[in-house]
């Protein structure tokens, strides 16, 4: 099954970069989920939580504003500030 290449980049460093199944992110005009082969899409993000699902594993990140870019080569979030939530 096709995978989605997702990377989460903060100004200081790259927090996450791998192939995953699904990513949910908080857009300024509503939360959205991205699956593999999503149509090209760009939006700004508000403060909230990004959920990264790959198989059974789930990773959570808290971000503070930023920008999302879904393109043919994958999904990139440029977050102003981001931390991984350790559950």
């Amino acid at each position, binding site marked *: 099954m096709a995978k989605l290449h997702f*990377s989460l*980049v*903060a*100004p*200081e*460093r*790259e927090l996450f970069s791998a192939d995953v199944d699904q990513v949910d992110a908080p*857009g*300024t*005009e509503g939360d959205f989920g991205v699956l593999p082969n999503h*149509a*090209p*899409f*760009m*939006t*700004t993000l508000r403060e909230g939580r990004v959920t990264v699902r790959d198989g059974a594993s789930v990773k959570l990140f808290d971000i503070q504003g930023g*920008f999302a*870019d879904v*393109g*043919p080569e994958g999904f*990139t979030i*440029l977050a*102003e*500030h981001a931390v991984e939530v350790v559950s």
Partner: protein
Amino acid sequence: MASLKEMRNRISSVKATQKITKAMQMVAAAKLRRSQDAAEAARPYARRLASVIANLATGVSGDGAPALLAGTGRDDRHLVVVAAADRGLAGGFTSSIVRAARAHIDGLIAQGKDVKIVCVGKKVTAQLRRPYGERVVDNFDLSAYRQLTLSVAQPIADVVTKLYEAGDIDVVTLFYSRFKSVVQQIPTALQLIPAVVEGGEPASGPAAVYEYEPSEEAILETLLPRNLTVQILSALLDNMAGFYASQMTAMDNATRNAGDMIKRYTLEYNRSRQAQITKELIEIISGAEAV
């Protein structure tokens, strides 16, 4: 000819200096590693942001383009941001940036343009205040920050945007030292406003039709100020790495020079000690013969 005691003192003082320069060199080397990693780690963000903006900018053109991208359409009033070090003892690090900036500033003044200057770093302020006086509109001291983050670059970007939005300036150029390698830092001028859009490679195949939420212009409007901050931050990070690299080299040279000096003094000291012993022997022998 200095007395033996004076020479001994001089040797021990040079030795003490050498210990300090050696320690500084090692500290700089350790910090260089860290700041190089930081500069490296910040690159993906800056690169992606730039490519996204390049992508967006080709779509948004003409009258709808935000002012940060389009500029004011004039070229009369310049703001020059000069960023270098807060501390010295790093060879010609700050001087080389300041020299490049001064050449640029003098050129602009000669063309009859209005130039304002913002200094980042204590040493820069000291070097530019004198020749340019009231042209220096603001200065920053970064020595208090242990780590360079966006919150350090933000106030600098704020000053720039405020001046720009007030309509006081047309073009903004940033001077910093690009970190090419440990032995090579290149003083570089980077135009911040109007934003320079990299001539991105033409999209392969049919250009992807993007959906924007909210509009293209609104996204660009929020991204451009952030890009400004990020560009300043990555310049500061490059500067930091360059500073430590150049401090390391400078201190390495100083340590080597101190070593040479110690060698020379020790040789001279031993020679005059030997000469004195010989002299004393001659005196004793001739004294004994006279009896």
